[in-house]
C-alpha cells in the first residue's frame, strides 16, 4: 500500500473502536469498479494465508489498485499498520431471488484478542439497493464474544444497518462485527469482494493522533446503540475503554470512571 497521506483522525479511529466499522462511500472510481466487476465475474484466484500485500496483489491488478487508493490505504495503515498480510480473499455473491439470507455471524472463529484486531475490507463495485441483499451490519457488536453463526437466531436488532450504497463503496470492519448477507429479492446479482488483513506491527497510535484530546473522541467512544440492553451497554463502554487503552498505550484513559472505579483497591496488590 503506497500512500499514507490519508491517515485516519483520532475521532475516526474512536468511531471504529465504538462501532466496529468505517464506511467510505464512492471511494473507488468508476473505471476501477468496471474492471473489478469483470474480475469478480471471471473468478479471482485465492491467496495463500499470510501473504504480503505486494505479493498477493500484483502491480496493476484491481485489488492492488483498490488498496492503493489513498483513502483506503490511509485507513488501512491507521488500522493495521504499514505492512499487513493478507489473510484471505473472497468474492461473495448474493444470487437474484435466491430466497434466503445468511445467518447473522462473525467471521472465522471466536476471537478474544483485546489488544489486536484484524480488518476486513468489503468492496461493492456496483450500487446496492434495498432489495439486493446488501450486507447486514450490527454496529457495536464487535466486542461481543460469540462464535461464528451461534448468533443465527437473531434476525433483527434495533439500529442495525441494512447496507445500501453507491458504486465503489468500501467498508472496513473489525473482525468481530456481527454481519450477514441479506436475502436478495431483486433480479440482479450482488457482488462483494472481501480482503482480510492481519497486522504485523503493534496497533498503537498508527493514525494521525494530532486530535487525540478532541472531546469528540470520548463522544465517539461513548456511543450506545439501540439494540444494547441497558446493563450490558455499560459493559460495552468498559470494553471499549480497554480497547482504546491498548490502541493509545494509555492505561489511564477512562470514560465516566467505569474502569477506574472497579480497579480501585487501595493497599491491595493481589
Amino acid at each position, binding site marked *: 500500500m503506497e500512500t499514507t497521506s490519508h491517515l485516519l483522525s483520532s475521532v475516526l479511529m474512536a468511531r471504529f473502536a465504538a462501532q466496529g466499522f468505517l464506511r467510505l462511500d464512492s471511494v473507488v472510481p468508476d473505471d476501477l469498479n468496471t474492471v473489478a466487476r469483470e474480475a469478480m465475474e471471471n473468478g479471482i484466484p485465492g491467496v495463500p494465508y499470510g501473504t504480503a500485500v505486494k505479493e498477493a496483489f500484483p502491480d496493476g491488478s484491481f485489488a492492488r489498485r483498490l488498496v492503493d487508493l489513498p483513502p483506503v490505504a490511509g485507513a488501512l495503515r491507521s488500522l493495521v499498520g504499514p505492512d499487513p498480510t493478507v489473510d484471505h480473499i473472497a468474492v461473495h455473491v448474493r444470487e437474484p431471488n435466491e430466497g*434466503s439470507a445468511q445467518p447473522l455471524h462473525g467471521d472465522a472463529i471466536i476471537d478474544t484478542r483485546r489488544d489486536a484486531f484484524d480488518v476486513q475490507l468489503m468492496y461493492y463495485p456496483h450500487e446496492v439497493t434495498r432489495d439486493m441483499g446488501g450486507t*447486514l451490519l450490527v454496529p457495536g457488536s464487535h466486542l461481543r464474544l460469540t462464535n461464528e453463526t451461534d448468533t*443465527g437466531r437473531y434476525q*433483527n436488532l434495533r439500529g442495525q444497518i441494512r447496507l445500501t450504497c453507491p458504486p465503489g463503496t468500501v467498508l472496513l470492519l473489525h473482525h468481530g462485527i456481527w454481519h450477514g448477507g441479506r*436475502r436478495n429479492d431483486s433480479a440482479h446479482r450482488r457482488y462483494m469482494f472481501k480482503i482480510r488483513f492481519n497486522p504485523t506491527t503493534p496497533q498503537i497510535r498508527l493514525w494521525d493522533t494530532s486530535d487525540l484530546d478532541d472531546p469528540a473522541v470520548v463522544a465517539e467512544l461513548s456511543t450506545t446503540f439501540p*439494540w444494547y*440492553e441497558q*446493563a450490558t451497554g455499560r*459493559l460495552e463502554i*468498559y470494553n471499549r475503554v480497554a480497547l482504546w487503552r491498548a490502541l493509545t498505550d494509555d492505561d489511564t484513559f477512562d470514560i465516566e470512571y467505569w474502569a477506574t472505579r472497579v480497579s480501585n483497591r487501595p493497599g491491595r496488590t493481589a
Partner: protein
Amino acid sequence: MKQRVLVLYLSTSSLDDRVVGWSSYDGTGRTRPTTGDSDDPPYETGTDALRDGWRLFQASQLIPPYPGHEYDTSFLKHEFLFEKLE
C-alpha cells in the same frame, strides 16, 4: 394446528421492558421471515405481545457471570419466546 414463534429480546429481564431485537418463525408457511428483513420491531415491549394474543412459553434464566468474565459481553441476555397456534 400449526405454531408461529416470536422471539423478543428485551432491554432488561422485565417482560414489560423495551424490545431491542426480534425474530419470528412461521409454521403456517404463509410468511418467510429471515435475517435482516425489518428495521421496526413488531412490538414495543414484551407485554405488548401478550396483549396481542402471543403466549409466552420460555424466558431466559438469570445467570450470574462466570468468575473472571464479569465484564465480557456475548449473547443477548433477555430472550422471551412466544407462540400462537393456528
